[in-house]
């Protein structure tokens, strides 16, 4: 619980990032989730990713809805502002937050109940609006805080802890995001930090709406035999399609950076494609299936669904459009954050009002 305070001191040899901070500077409060919860692994991955990106913690804004997953913004980035809002409505709050200050890195954390059930409408519309943010779903297929009801992402036939099968077809948020124009779509697994951390880093740095569906088993209510969201099931059924690695600017050979634009998108299986990121870093993609094109959202949708039919959970980066534009560009908003504009920018003044009055005579 929050009564437990983490020690302030840390190991003197903890590595520091480019701005002189350690991983501890990106941590949050002690988690109140169940021991072994997948969500805590996701929070840990977020801590590591943000620390490795060397972004000052206060430059993040964290938003969430309601549920186990939505509690997690307390458990990372203690030095950033966080907003635990209303069930299923994080997308609108995130939209407003991003509209007010486009310079902040916005991270939204939601769950399958929050985004696929009560908030499915808001989820669909934030994808359409292209808000520049990382939208991360901790997907465990169940309602944890109310003790184990099925959520809308739960597979048909997957059983509850008491052995009752789910009667309804699932909503796949990855497919929804691909269909509605998300410019970065990935699926990952809380048990695979090696895959998740680079994806989070790429998602944060992606310019546009980045969505990661993280299958994150619920140890209390959905980790039994018969569940398709258990650690064991996901480990045994997941297939990795595109490995993403995030190469920091600092680690790049300057000549390589200068030439990276020339690298073509065509590559053979096992080879890599480098996608330039806004900060100059490189998103290095290794394709494990030669038939897969990470820049084709229609094919990605098809691929995910075909594999799903065969009982396989496709993970990795599924789609990225490095040229994507965000909501502010679409709306032609001024570059300065709206929350920093003052009277001189905003108020047209009394002379303009005199003219307006005259137009109503």
């Amino acid at each position: 619980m929050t009564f437990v305070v983490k020690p302030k001191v840390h190991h003197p040899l903890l590595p520091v990032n480019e701005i002189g901070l350690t991983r501890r500077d990106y941590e949050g409060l002690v988690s109140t989730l169940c021991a072994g919860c997948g969500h805590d692994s996701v929070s840990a991955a977020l801590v590591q990713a943000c620390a490795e990106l060397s972004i000052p913690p206060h430059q993040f804004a964290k938003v969430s809805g309601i549920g186990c997953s939505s509690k997690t913004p307390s458990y990372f980035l203690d030095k950033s502002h966080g907003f635990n809002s209303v069930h299923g409505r994080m997308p609108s709050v995130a939209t407003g937050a991003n509209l007010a200050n486009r310079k902040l890195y916005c991270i939204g954390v939601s769950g399958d109940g929050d985004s696929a059930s009560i908030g499915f409408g808001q989820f669909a519309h934030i994808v359409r609006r292209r808000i520049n943010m990382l939208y991360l779903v901790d997907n465990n297929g169940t309602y944890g805080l109310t003790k184990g009801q099925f959520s809308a992402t739960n597979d048909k036939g997957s059983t509850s802890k008491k052995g009752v099968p789910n009667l309804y077809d699932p909503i796949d948020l990855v497919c929804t995001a691909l269909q509605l124009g998300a410019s970065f779509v990935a699926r990952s697994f809380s048990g695979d930090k090696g895959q998740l951390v680079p994806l989070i880093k790429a998602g944060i740095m992606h310019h546009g709406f980045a969505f990661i569906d993280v299958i994150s088993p619920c140890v209390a209510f959905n980790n039994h035999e018969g569940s398709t969201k258990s650690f064991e099931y996901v480990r045994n059924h997941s297939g990795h399609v595109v490995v993403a690695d995030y190469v920091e600017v600092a680690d790049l050979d300057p000549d390589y950076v200068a030439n990276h634009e020339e690298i073509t998108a065509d590559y053979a299986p096992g080879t890599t494609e480098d996608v330039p990121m806004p900060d100059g870093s490189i998103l290095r993609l290794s394709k494990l299936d030669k038939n897969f094109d990470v820049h084709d959202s229609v094919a990605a949708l098809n691929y995910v669904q075909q594999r799903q039919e065969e009982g396989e959970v496709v993970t990795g980066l599924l789609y990225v459009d490095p040229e994507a534009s965000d909501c502010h560009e679409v709306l032609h908003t001024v570059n300065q954050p709206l929350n920093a504009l003052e009277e001189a920018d905003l108020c047209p003044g009394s002379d303009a009002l005199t003219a307006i009055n005259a137009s109503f005579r």
Partner: protein
Amino acid sequence: MTTTYNDFVIRFGNVNGSGSASANGMFPKALFRMGIPVAIRNLFPSNIQGLPTWFEVRVSERGYLGRREGVDIMVAMNAETYREDVESLLPGGYLLHDTSKPLPSVLKRNDIFELGIPISTMLLSEFSDPKQRSLFKNVVYIGALSELLNMEFEVITNMVATQFRGKDALIKPNIHALEIGRQYARDYLPCPLPIQVRRSTAVGERILIDGNTAGALGALYGGATVCAWYPITPSTSLAEAFEKYALKLRVDPDSGDRKFVFMQAEDELSAIGIVIGAAWNGARAFTATSGPGISLMTEFLGLAYFAEIPAVVFDVQRSGPSTGMPTRTQQGDLLAAAYASHGDTKHVLLFPSTPVECFDFGALALDLADRLQTPVIIMSDLELGMNDSLSEPLVWDDARKYDRGKVLDADDLENVEQFGRYLDVDGDGIGYRTYPGTHPEKGSFFTRGTSRDEFARYTESPDAYEQNMQRLLEKWATAATLVPEAEIVSSGQRAAILYYGTSALPMREALDLLAEEGISLDTIRIRGFPFGKEVYEFIARHEFVFVVDQNRDSQMKTLLVTEGALDPAKLIPVIYYAGLSISADTIQSQVSGYFTMRKMPRLKVVKS
């Protein structure tokens, strides 16, 4: 018959979507430009084409802007409503209609005058295009009225020229249609009628503007940068006016960069969510909606109250409950707005009565929301929002600074010993907040709808919860000192009348009518909620107070009784809620009826 000047009610009965709106609109605008006070009411159906629509203009040299019962001149252009249109005329009234088809004799009235014009027949030979023939029907009767009522014709022709500037090909045929009507009236009708108009100075400096446009301008001048909304009658035109003026006044001429965001959301939940997200992050944000939208926003409004986030909402009220009568006016959302959300929740309300107050309160609401860190709801209605009303000009003081409330920047944080988001440092119930991204080390906090301590840390401690809820009451008391004071006119009467919003429109006339009956009342116009102490003192000074509500259940009375622990028997409801705006006659008859029923003394004996 004696001639009267600038004192009548004219009503136009048309079919929705027949192009009558622009022609009818010319009529009051011409009178307004002749300096004559007009009040305009557009009674339109929830429909785009085909259903009946009425346009009513009250012309009043004395400046009575409320609705008056009965019609003096009826322009009956809709066969479907012909019967009720004829019936709506007062005895001695005038019925202007198209005689191209004969009037059914069953609808004849002996106590009215008919002004028949063969409009369709005349147009048949003048215009070959059937669409033009249909549109110009409306223009022909405006031409005829100009002659019948002795209007200044060039005022109308100038308006046509202005209206169609850039589409010059339309000017000539419009003026021709006006002249056809004018000539027919001159040749065949008893011009001018004993009901006439004449140039006046009664309008003065006032402008003719709708409350929604004025409210949007208030938000724009008040520094709103985010407008998130969902289309709903009768608030849509407020959001759209904001965009229109922002595109004119908030766009960098060189770069085309916009210093605002106008976002149509997928529903009202999202609209208020965007507003709250933006305001949490330090932008001034608002939404415009109506009753059904308020219903959808309640959960978020509760969050904003409890998590203490500014939000500005224009509620342009319409007739409820449910979808109700979506194109009819009402003041039916008071309780829904005042206590929107579960738990102990209360919201600051502002009650504009005029377009200039829509403007003033639009800007003020943004200041109040920031100062009080809570939602502020502006309670307009369809009557005020969608009709052009005479209004004092909009005024802005260039020296005015926005009040962004208690916000700490990076320098402030350096100097603060201990930052606690919900610490009541100043004893007014309002803590200090920070925007995300302000300082690398200090001032971050977690915003939540769950209970927390003064340092924004989650807690379920009974003491911390109760202390927080009590502090919100302290803030509520502060709010009562900051909302606009009630407007009081007092001459020491024992009885008084309390009203708000658009009930102000007929009030002066109602008081004049009551005075003729020997009833004098002190008045108080409520402009904000929570009520200031002047409201309770005023009520305490009077034996009884009429409370005028445009809703069935006396919602303002409920608010007064609840918040002020007042004796309900002292507050006498005056009610009208059938979809039109309350008339002077309604107020007069209910107040007068109460005096009669209670055998209350009057100042003088009424002549029977």
